[in-house]
């Protein structure tokens, strides 16, 4: 079906009504945010509009992408990692080399996770399988990286005097910040760990439900979903660890002085 034909489909009109309802609901939350003085409206509005346009574009293009040769899946996945790093870098604006750091962390975390899944036979090496599952994994790596950056930047600024007190004793920089690296990794993994804990009790994942509705064996669907979540956990852990490791490198000068970040934050 061409993009024009897709747009003329009556289901699209129904979808637009649902989108309007979702926007109204989100609008109420944004009004509450404004009322509470959370100052999130600008970022939320931009995120909503951007997300809507992007997902529509992907919806229209996915058919074309699925028809491409396998080699293109690597190009598209790499493009996704670049976009993910570009979005994630804003969470650590004040940190030096934050785009390179985010991209490296996402590539390490998501890349190893995707390769592991292909090798284990959990994803068939076809563009139709690699793009949706790869996208899911990259998005998870991006989310973990953003949480890590946000937390680590705050940890460094809020504990500057404690870190410098340790440096002043002749403690190596990496040791001086190890506690704050651990805190950041733990905080970044909370959503993934909680998803694993609530799996089957609270969290009935869409992928598993979709597989069951499509006629797959429910036990296999559950096993597959567990594989996905475990991979997401491993991917998040790797991304977060790589991210903090690299930040540990970039946060100090050659003379082991903690760099100042406030200027860029302001």
């Amino acid at each position: 079906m061409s993009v024009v034909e897709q747009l003329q489909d009556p289901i699209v009109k129904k979808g637009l009504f649902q989108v309007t309802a979702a926007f109204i609901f989100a609008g109420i939350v944004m009004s509450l945010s404004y009322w509470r003085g959370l100052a999130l409206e600008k970022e939320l509005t931009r995120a909503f509009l951007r997300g809507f346009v992007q997902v529509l574009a992907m919806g229209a293009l996915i058919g074309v992408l699925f028809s491409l040769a396998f080699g293109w899946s690597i190009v598209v996945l790499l493009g996704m990692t670049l976009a993910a790093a570009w979005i994630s870098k804003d969470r650590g604006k004040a940190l030096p080399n934050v785009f390179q750091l985010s991209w490296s962390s996402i590539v390490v975390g998501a890349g190893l996770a995707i390769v592991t899944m292909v090798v284990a036979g959990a994803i068939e090496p076809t563009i139709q399988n690699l793009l949706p599952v790869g996208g899911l994994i990259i998005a998870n790596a991006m989310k973990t990286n953003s949480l890590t950056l946000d937390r680590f930047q705050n940890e460094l600024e809020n504990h500057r005097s404690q870190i410098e007190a340790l440096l002043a004793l002749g403690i190596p920089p990496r040791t001086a910040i190890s506690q704050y690296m651990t805190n950041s990794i733990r905080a970044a993994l909370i959503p993934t760990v909680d998803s694993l804990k609530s799996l089957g009790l609270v969290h009935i994942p869409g992928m598993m439900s979709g597989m069951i509705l499509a006629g797959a064996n429910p036990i296999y669907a559950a096993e597959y979903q567990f594989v996905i979540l475990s991979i997401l956990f491993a991917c998040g852990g790797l991304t977060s660890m790589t991210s903090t490791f690299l930040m540990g490198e970039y946060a100090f000068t050659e003379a082991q002085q903690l760099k100042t970040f406030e200027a860029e934050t302001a």
Partner: protein
Amino acid sequence: MTPKLEAKSLSYQVSEKTIINNVSFHVTQGEILAIAGPSGSGKSSLLRLLNRLNEPTAGTVYLDDQDYRQLSPQQLRQRIGYIAQTPALQPGTVLENVTIGPRLRGETVTEETAQQLLTRLHLTDYDNYNVSYLSGGEQQRVAIARTLFNQPEVVLLDEPTASLDHHTQQELETFLQELINSSQITCILVTHDETQAKRLAQRMIRLKNGAMVALEELKPVVS
């Protein structure tokens, strides 16, 4: 007498603002040198340059005639201890804080030595106290013990008695004098209290707007 530590033409600028402007001085072994000056004159910034927590934009520091840039920052900071104005202790007990330097470097820690140091700083039996329950003055003394336990050759003290009551201030001054007399440790003391500088130090330099405006002899160095 050969200088233990010598600052040569030290300058420090941040975003074109001059914080320290061409400061030179030296301090000999076993001497207490005071740095006095009004708020914002650059006293604390100068100490941070000496510990190399900040990088001088010009000039350098010599420790036993060796340019401190030739030493690894870790070696340098072990030899030149720095006690900041705020204690900045780590969460945990007093003993964990006092022994943190050698412990994090993987060295063997003698708890007895730490306890002796705590006794000298009037913190006997405080070893298992959580530092978050200590008063500002007690925390400051733990910070001093933490630096001294690291066995530095030079100690940089930034307003060490600012948060102490008069009695504890006098005790700490006595302790510092005893320590310097017994171990020949070298000390650079930043203070806004000139009477304290005169009680403790052999010489005093005055800073104004980041520049050294005077060097005063107060009393002879005890060798």
